[in-house]
């Protein structure tokens, strides 16, 4: 449905994108737009200030794109029915990761996942595939660094109910709850936790992130039955997901708010942080910063008189979270 007249500027939100084409939502309508050549030129000048030419393949490879899902843009309708994006509003925040590299020696670059978020919802399956808690710590640190609150969701809880794995999982959950992160246990089979999830997502823009096969799209189908997003079971041989969702898309929720479904990620590299500031984004470590013998210069690794190491030994900080912190710092 396109009701706007040509040459009138309209603002909307990017809800979907494919190579070079962006779907902009404006109220009930949606328009497919391209980016104006002037914006490309400005983006080139911003990205490569030394006058280097942008690689023409970059956009095709989805490596660098000035527009991401959730961006608020201004567009005008062209004669052929498509729109042209003429302006991108400054982002309130954005969630980004270090893009996966095809080989270790390849150039690392930022991959913005979504912009203008109210909350990030890292999703992990209780089993199939088993949860990777260091990866959760990465999601949480990335969200904390952007100032976006996180709500942890555990799916497929029915798979471990009554087993020994349930006790182990609840112990880990308690660790994150003590830090202050809300956690919702869900099951698409029994419907457990779906109402809680609906309530926390109401009137907010949320991004679902997690590994392939954890049930992001399944959860979304349960929350909004009309969406009909394609889902698949995990591979029974490998126990891993099948990368069913391949592009980001924003969906509007019936009770207000919007949700961004993302493809599963194998890795989530931290981008744009210095090793020295990682501890700032661990909420349990934050109050201890500056209390070490070497003050703010302490690396919290081998230094004597480190307040954070002492807190780990005293049981105030989880050794698993501390190990995650050290690994994240080493990766940067």
């Amino acid at each position, binding site marked *: 449905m396109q009701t706007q007249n040509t040459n009138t500027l309209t603002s909307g939100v990017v809800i979907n994108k494919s190579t070079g084409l962006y779907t902009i939502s404006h109220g009930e309508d949606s328009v497919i737009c391209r980016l104006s050549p002037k914006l490309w030129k400005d983006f080139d000048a911003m990205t490569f200030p030394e006058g280097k030419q942008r690689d023409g393949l970059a956009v095709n490879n989805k490596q660098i794109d000035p527009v991401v899902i959730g961006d608020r843009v201004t567009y005008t309708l062209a004669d052929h029915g498509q729109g042209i994006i003429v302006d991108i509003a400054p982002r309130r925040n954005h969630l980004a990761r270090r893009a996966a590299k095809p080989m270790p020696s390849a150039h690392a670059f930022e991959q913005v996942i979504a912009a203008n978020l109210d909350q990030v919802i890292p999703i992990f399956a209780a089993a199939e595939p088993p949860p990777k808690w260091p990866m959760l710590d990465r999601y949480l640190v990335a969200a904390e660094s952007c100032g976006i609150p996180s709500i942890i969701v555990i799916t497929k809880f029915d798979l471990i109910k009554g087993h020994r794995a349930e006790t182990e999982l609840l112990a*880990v959950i308690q660790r994150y709850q003590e830090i202050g992160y809300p956690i919702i246990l869900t099951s698409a089979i029994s419907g457990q936790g779906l109402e809680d999830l609906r309530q926390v997502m109401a009137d907010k823009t949320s991004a679902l992130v997690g590994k392939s096969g954890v049930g992001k799209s399944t959860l979304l189908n349960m929350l909004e039955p009309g969406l009909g997003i394609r889902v698949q079971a995990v591979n029974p041989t490998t126990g891993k997901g099948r990368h069913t969702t391949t592009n980001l898309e924003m969906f509007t929720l019936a009770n207000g708010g919007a949700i961004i479904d993302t493809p599963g990620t194998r890795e989530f590299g931290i981008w744009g942080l210095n090793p020295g500031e990682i501890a700032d984004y661990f909420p349990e470590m934050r109050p201890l910063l500056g209390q070490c013998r070497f003050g703010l210069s302490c690396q919290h*690794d081998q230094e004597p008189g480190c307040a954070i*190491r*002492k807190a780990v*030994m005293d049981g105030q900080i989880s*050794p*698993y979270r501390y*190990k995650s912190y050290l690994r994240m710092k080493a990766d940067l």
Partner: protein
Amino acid sequence: MRTKVQAVNADFICKHCGAFVKAHRATSGVVNRNHCPYCLYSQHLDLCKAGDRLCACKALMAPVGLTHKISRDKFSHKRPGELMLVHQCQYCGELSINRVATDDDPLKLTAVFENMPPDIDQLHKACQEHGISLLNRNNRSIVMSSLFGLASVEIQDLLSIS
């Protein structure tokens, strides 16, 4: 929570004596090279099991004694097994036992056995709490036969050979 134990085979510089230590299993004979072969000191890095690297203490662990694994012969009779080194953290006092590696200095191992720390009773008590039975002077033949293949070797003889 299950922890994936990392393969700890990275070369390192000993924090006690400063020696560069090759951690390859071909030279050490063990998968996890967890102490310096020259001074036998270790570092307090593991919390729940070997290689988990979850401990934040990271202080030096001094060699305080020797123990041995209990193995059984074909008739299920107990007999002394592999020789193990007992380490104690110099900061928090935690005890751990580690396999003696092929390239560990045998004279240093003998010295650890011969020169027990002065607070031996306290150490024995701590070891008992951890289920470790320290080898004492009555077990000299076990240590010597494990290290040198001779039960009655004297330390003076070893020094004269070296």
